[in-house]
């Protein structure tokens, strides 16, 4: 806003104005469907999930083990060198408790999500997943967790082949 300007334009309307027809709207639902190629790296990652294993890629130049895997290192800008199996246990780097679904709809039962650094991945290299078998107030950053997998016959080669990660006690 400037003191030199006297009028700011724009005409507000409410959702009710729209629903009750006081504002004209033309409605459409564009339909576009997709079949995404998973690519070389993610394709292997997904097929390993189907086998109950998590796989990453190592770049020998910077030494990082990357998960999700990629065929090139974005820092060194060279091909990554080898496949590396990672443990399905790890550590919570950060977490949150979501009462919102994908369309901002309210959820009765919240979803707990976390960035998890898997054992064998480089420091700070995390993956996003859900936490289960734990109450929201019990989750802590630094908590140790382990993947809970779908039964083998139900796996389809998707990130959801892991149902969630649950806390583990270690001696």
């Amino acid at each position, binding site marked *: *806003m*400037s*003191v*030199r*300007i006297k009028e*700011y*334009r*724009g*005409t*507000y*309307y*409410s*959702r009710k104005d*729209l629903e009750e027809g006081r*504002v004209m*709207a033309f*409605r*459409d639902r*564009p339909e576009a469907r*997709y079949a*995404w190629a*998973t690519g070389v790296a*993610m394709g292997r990652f*997904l097929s390993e999930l189907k086998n109950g294993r998590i796989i990453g890629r190592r770049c020998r130049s910077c030494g990082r083990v*990357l998960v*999700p895997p*990629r065929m090139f290192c*974005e820092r060194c800008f060279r091909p990554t060198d080898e496949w590396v199996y990672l443990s399905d246990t790890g550590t919570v*780097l*950060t*977490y*949150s*408790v*979501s*009462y*919102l*679904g*994908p*369309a*901002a709809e309210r959820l009765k039962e*919240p*979803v707990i*999500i*976390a*960035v998890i650094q898997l054992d064998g991945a480089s420091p*700070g*290299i*995390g*993956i*996003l*997943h*859900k936490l289960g078998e734990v109450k*929201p107030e019990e989750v802590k*950053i630094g908590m140790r967790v382990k993947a809970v997998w779908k039964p083998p016959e139900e796996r389809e080669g*998707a*990130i*959801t082949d892991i149902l969630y990660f649950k806390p583990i006690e270690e001696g």
Partner: protein
Amino acid sequence: MASIKRRVAIIGAGITLFRRRLKETGRELSFYAAKMALEQAGITLDDVDAVVCGTAPDAFDGVHMKGEYLADGMGGHRRPFVRVYVGGGTGVFTPIAAWWHVASGHFDVVLAVAEEKMSSCFPHPQKAFTTIFDPIYTRPLGANLVWIFALEMQRYMHVHGVKKEQIATIAVKNKRNALDHPCAQLPAKITVKDVLESEVMVWPVQRLDISPPSDGAAAVVLAAEHVAKQLTDDPVWIEGVGWCLDSTYWTNRDLYYPKYVEYAARMAYKMAGIKNPPKEIDVAEPYDPFDYKEAHHAEGLMLARKGEYLKDVKDENDIFAKYGRDGDLPICPSGGLLGVGNPIAAAGMMKVCEIFWQLRKEAGKRQVKNDPRTGVAQAWGDLMQVGTVMVMRV
């Protein structure tokens, strides 16, 4: 910078109301903002050599190539016109792109217009936001956009021991500042308690921690030095620009600190000759789509040390003493995205407009009290990965 050919000034700015829904189309809103900016600059479209458009995802509108659809309303008809896009960072990146059009020596006068109409996506634009996530690796988990903010806020609080009570003071400040902005969508006098008692969306993010979806447009006119000096006695010089992009693999970096914002700021500060940002910058508009983001970005802009933006801030009085309009370093005097609204690209441009008006001493009731000479505007976005920074001086 290798060799910048010419100095560039902002000579006019315009803005529409920001609201949850506006009856006008994006084209009509763009026209209002562009026309106002030209009038403020004292020129007409005939004087404009090129137009730069900023607008965020096509998914909001459900119309592909929306830059082209907006061109007429932005003054882009039958002249060089280009749309730039870096997610939420677009609003500050748009005048940066306009800057290089002029600094290169290729154009003398360039109009930069940013627009967003989020209400077309019905009933809520969140659904369109989910298409920014990786379709194979992230979307099947049911991700919504607030997740990433909540994860980042939690990490920031954990690493530095910052409390939610402290972060809530930012929402209090910005919404109160917005009471003096005639275009503001959510100005309010609220307390820390109100923020802490508001609906939990994605813990630790609550309703009053978040800026709203909005419709709106904003514009600035840029001119080369020789033209600017003819047209106005009060040019505001663009003395530093910077931008930087990190990876979309956002779970592979430590979210407590936006390194890419720091890199963008370093680029802009080097160009502007700024060595000690908190001492040399008089007013700042860091991007605040969420309250903690103001702290996160002020630290990325090196206006405070890592984790120290809210040091000694225990309540409302402390935040106004430090960062109010008559505070030590005024931050978001406009009211920010939290108070004025968040029509993505237009929101970033609103921050550039605000610094322009603050440095020209035209901000009226919002005018900061420290006789500002140098200001910085910053925007941020995509998958927590882009920083765009502009330093302005009079």
